[in-house]
């Protein structure tokens, strides 16, 4: 973490239904609680599943920033789906961007029907490397399935994000935010997923 830096542009991207909106809301809440200005802009094709969904989370110690990150200004990209990491990088990435990516693809309908191709994972890795400073790979969905539900993938990804220590937010502070939003069994499984994510961020 660079102590000089007074604002952060984070993008959480994925496919509708992956829990993207909730993740960004929780991170935003944690930062507002810490006294930061936080702005979240959500971009989605429509309310249904299947489309690309992207949340811009802008954190500043100085002022309220606009809801959309300007071109090439993303500091960190958390991608719940590999191709979506690339899609976001092509517009918002720069050579210093750090990417944390879930390795499990979700195939678009046009790929399922054979009209379009989904790139090989090796090609995705190569391009991610070209367009960023560092890439962390997390097999979040596989781990989440083992834990009982693919939706936990989002919390595993947040665990990985906090572990790489690029944002001024500690694991403990985020745990507190979680405990304000959930209780009982739901809180417990989310905390477990967060803990798993911590162990899973790999270059």
């Amino acid at each position, binding site marked *: 973490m660079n102590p000089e830096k007074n604002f952060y542009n984070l993008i959480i991207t994925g496919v509708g239904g992956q829990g993207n909106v909730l993740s960004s809301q929780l991170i935003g809440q944690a930062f507002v609680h810490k006294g930061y200005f936080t702005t979240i802009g*959500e971009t989605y094709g429509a309310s249904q599943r299947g489309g690309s969904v992207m949340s811009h989370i802008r954190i500043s110690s100085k002022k309220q920033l606009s809801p959309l990150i300007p071109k*090439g200004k993303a500091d960190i990209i958390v991608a719940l789906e590999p191709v979506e990491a690339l899609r976001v990088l092509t517009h918002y990435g720069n*050579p210093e961007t750090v990417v944390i990516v879930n390795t499990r693809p979700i195939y678009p309908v046009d790929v*399922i029907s054979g009209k379009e191709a989904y*790139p090989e994972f090796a090609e995705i890795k190569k391009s991610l490397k070209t367009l960023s400073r560092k890439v962390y790979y997390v097999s979040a969905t596989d781990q989440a399935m083992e834990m009982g539900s693919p939706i936990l993938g989002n919390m595993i990804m947040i665990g990985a994000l906090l572990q790489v220590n690029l944002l001024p937010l500690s694991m403990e502070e985020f745990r507190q935010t979680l405990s304000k939003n959930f209780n009982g069994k739901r809180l417990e499984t989310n905390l477990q997923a967060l803990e798993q994510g911590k162990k899973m961020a790999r270059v």
Partner: protein
Amino acid sequence: MSIIDLDAPGKELLLMGNEAIARGALEAGVKVCTAYPGTPSTDIIENLASVAKPMGLYVEWSINEKVALEVASAASFSGLRALCAMKQNGLNVASDYLLSLNLIGIEAGLLLVTCDDPSAHSSSTEQDSRPFAKLADLPLLEPSTFQEAKEMTKWAFALSEEMGIVCLMRGVTRTSHARGNVTLGPLPSPDGRKAWFDKTRQRNTHPVCQKHDQLHRNLIRLEEIFAASPFNQYIGPERPKALIITCGSGWLYSQEALELLGLEDAVGVLKIGTTWPLPTTMIIEKLEKTPKVLFVEEVDSFLEGNVKELAADFSGQIGPKTFFGKRSQHIPFFGEMNADRVIDALGKIFQVRYQARSPRYEAQAAEVAEKMLPSRALGFCPGCPHRASYWSIKNALQLDNRQGFATYDIGCYALGRGPAGYYLLKTGGAMGTGTGLASGFGKLASFGFDQPVVAMCGDSTFFHAAMPPLVNACYNKSNLVMVILDNSTTAMTGFQPHPGVGRNAMGEEVAPVDIEAVCHSFGAKVSVTDPFDLEGTKQKMLQALEDPVGAKVVIMRRQCQMLKGKEEKLPYQVRVNPEICIGDDCGCDRLCTRVFKCPGLMWDNKLAQARIDEVICVGCGVCADICPEKAIIKEEIR
């Protein structure tokens, strides 16, 4: 659960713009809140509904926006502050009454919030709703930040009350459906005020000309009030080389663009929060001090046109100006704003070169964008009953073989215009339009028209605007098939209840309106089917298509999977038996993946066979019924 009723003045929260509006209404002592759901406005009433009981409010999902405005007006006439919310298309519906209500006037503060959707992220249009303020001669406010959304809402009630007219407020996706910091203010203590209508006064539009004249006099008074409003704000040098005049989301984008270009000391930004009528004196004073003006706003050139009108009136005083904006094509005519669009416009005006990234990086990014990014077409969710409904309708129209097609309106099922609905939907538009058009096509037989027409309609849409055209079809003996896709909720906007559901916004149980009985009473021939029964649904469609007389209604009823999935476990474990699936040799043209296209299915290129994606599949089992080889196996989960 909503946090908008938190009684903690001074506490700072992360709130969505719509939540901030709802909170502002609570701080203003609102009593009655109404809406028909529509993204990006829905959360306003949704949040207020969730605190209705503890806060002593009456909140309703009205059947459409016009009724919502009428219900809110009744509260205002009776001395209770009221809020009515809608999306941009909704204002078109409500405008019929709004353009009388402006003349009629109100008693207690009445705020009408419209949320526009620039770039049409979740809409069928990107209509700018602001011209309605000018048309109706009513005040219009536009918040730029989340905090301002709350403060403005609170103030709007007082303004409306002081002037005795409805106040309009316009949000956009990036102010209403985005989140940011909001510091809470105090909540008023209950005043126990009795609602009462003063029947010594008639509330109507008469005498029309006199009341119209009064509206214009109001605008002069409003200009004075607005000239002193803290919602109009200037930052920048005393005599800027250029002035950005902006509103709404443009305020933050403009500041960010100037910072990225290092132009903060050369260019000023004038943010207008009261966009109709304009604060004339304030604008003229700023125009006097600059030679160039750039307009930054979403979507149409509303501010641009109105400021230019003022500049013409005061041309002697302010001298010649060069204006930049949509008309000069420095800002695109369509789509939402962002900092990059402002940078682009300023770059052209000041001949500044700005590069977000190195040419090398741009080239690499462009190559990836071109070669490696499969598009994500929107489709129905896994397990969605609409996919099965469209499948059967497509097959029935094919068997019928008379070049039949479908018409539609607004809702999840409108995705049927694309691959998700096999491109069956050929024309539509507004709420209820599908049935109105079908009613028209169904009367063209005497001119040789012989194609069957199917009007696709949702259950919530049925109550909103499709009952009148169905009555029209019955009354005029039109030959049509209306399909009501009854998924027992308003799905597209986030599962709000409607009159067919048996529950209202206050959480009360109510007798559900029986769609079947309603259609029957109009004189339509009604049948009901479960869309997951593919064969039965196809047969009912065929029967309806073959019946040459009158209006036929086929209700395809199954609860939205997004709701059902929360209540019930998956019915089936679905898998592909690799021994049976013969892939491309089958001759089925990959019916499951290429044609049916459920996202829960995938094609394994190595095995050249279909597979189930266990992360996506919800176990509805419909694909097992379409596989001609019976290679897809559904096993009931016990």
